[in-house]
């Protein structure tokens, strides 16, 4: 099917609802589970694809989600509803079974991402303009709280690195104020805020380990990470993996590294360096740097295969046609390949038999067999970026 026909089919679904034929000319089945569904962002056209992961098929294209550059998605606990956070401040609740938009609000002028509470009740958006976080009811997207991010410097800040923590809590970093905040909504919609100041210059992104223990914010204004041990009675911020640029020229970064989906392998965390063509291995038991592994270029995503043995890495412009595979056990790059122009994101199937790779400038998503590292299928997508499988509903962190 050519693209025009495909687009037209997608539109008809959006208008007419789930009973109509879906994007690929097939019904979006009314009776099915959602555990092998995925949502893929088409950043330039404000649309998303609902995909059947097992069948390697697009079920529907849903349009009208606004500016989806740098968009991200989280899933409710039933794995039926996706919440898509757009650049333009749009928050869209997508019904993955009916293949339609359930509800959409414009909640800010400029946004960066979001998270969902452990009980699935609260959707939280992280915003650039105005900075801060906002909390929404997961059912109807009604606004429940707005927490501005005014740092100790008195200035409003962009918020980055928002993650959920157990007990209706959320952690995030203040890019313009060098702070990390934890907002606790367990007692109601006026959160108890814990603030850490002087965490390091320009925290650009953050994530939390799957045990909700280690929150790490990558720093852009210095070479290192701000670490908070959330299991401590009185958590405090320490710098870890500091000084990796010492004595070396900081190389230009044409795309900021991302910590979403980061590479956790047992007690080792694989992190992108900022300004070196390397990945950095952090030992989570000692919180010391274990190794620096030279890589193809400036890393963007370091994504662990679900079993943790391998971490697959993509890279910044102008070297973004390449993916490398790091064997964390032997600490060697064991495979380097070129999926195509502008590899933006990677997503493993929940148990890691496949990895889906968005190749933006080829307008396709490539599906690789992880064991043989060979391409087994592809699906078409217009400028695809983020790939999100519903199994994320049951994972902590971003």
């Amino acid at each position, binding site marked *: 099917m050519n693209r025009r026909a495909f687009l037209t089919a997608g539109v008809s679904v959006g208008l007419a609802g789930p009973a109509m034929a879906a994007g690929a000319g097939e019904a979006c089945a009314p009776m099915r589970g959602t555990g092998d569904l995925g949502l893929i962002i088409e950043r330039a056209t404000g649309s998303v694809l609902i995909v059947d992961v097992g069948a390697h098929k697009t079920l529907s294209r849903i349009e009208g989600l606004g500016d989806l*550059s*740098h968009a991200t998605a989280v899933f409710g606990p039933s794995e039926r509803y996706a919440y898509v956070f757009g*650049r333009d401040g749009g928050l869209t609740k997508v019904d993955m079974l009916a293949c339609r938009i359930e509800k959409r609000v414009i909640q800010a002028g400029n946004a960066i991402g979001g998270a969902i509470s452990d009980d699935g009740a609260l959707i939280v958006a992280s915003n650039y303009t105005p900075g801060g976080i906002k909390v929404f009811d997961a059912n109807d997207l009604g606004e429940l709280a707005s927490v501005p991010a005014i740092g100790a410097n008195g200035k409003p800040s962009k918020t980055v690195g928002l993650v959920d923590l157990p007990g209706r809590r959320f952690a995030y970093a203040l890019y313009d104020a060098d702070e990390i905040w934890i907002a606790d909504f367990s007692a109601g919609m006026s959160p108890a805020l814990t603030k850490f100041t002087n965490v390091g210059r320009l925290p650009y992104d953050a994530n939390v380990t799957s045990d909700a223990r280690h929150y790490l914010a990558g720093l852009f*204004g210095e070479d290192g990470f701000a670490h908070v041990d959330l299991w401590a009675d009185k958590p405090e911020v320490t710098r870890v993996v500091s000084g990796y640029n010492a004595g070396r020229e900081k190389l230009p*970064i044409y795309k*900021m590294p991302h910590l979403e989906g980061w590479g956790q392998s047992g007690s080792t965390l694989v992190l992108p360096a900022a300004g070196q063509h390397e990945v950095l291995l952090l030992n989570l038991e000692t919180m010391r740097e274990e190794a620096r592994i030279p890589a193809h270029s400036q890393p963007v995503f370091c994504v662990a295969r679900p079993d943790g043995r391998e971490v697959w890495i993509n890279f910044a412009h*102008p070297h973004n046609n390449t993916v490398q595979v790091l064997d964390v056990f032997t600490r060697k790059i064991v495979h380097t390949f070129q999926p195509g122009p502008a590899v933006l994101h990677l997503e493993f199937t929940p148990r890691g038999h496949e990895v889906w790779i968005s190749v933006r*400038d080829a307008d396709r998503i490539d599906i690789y067999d992880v064991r043989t590292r060979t391409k087994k299928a592809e699906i078409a997508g217009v400028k695809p970026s983020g790939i999100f499988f519903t199994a994320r509903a049951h994972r902590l962190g971003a």
Partner: protein
Amino acid sequence: MARRLEIALAVGIVSLMAAGASQAGDRAAELTALVREDCGSCHGMTLKGGLGAPLLPADLAEKDASSLAAIILDGVPGTPMPPWRGLVSEADARWIAEHLKQGFPQ
């Protein structure tokens, strides 16, 4: 298609005027994609800003094209704005700067 041709023509004229360089329409398309897609990863695909500053004409009214071209080529130390020299030529940077000020092509 007509739009693409219009851009290509505009590019040809501007680059001849501004930089004296002969810049084919293909390069204009490449630069347009570069700005929207790759600059867009920080500045937003619509250029309304993100981690990086907004780059719409109203935001750039106080800045002249040469200083914008210099920022593109040499970056802004202490911020994430990297130097693009080596990836874009001076004529490219000038073309991008002038088109940002005018309202960047889609």
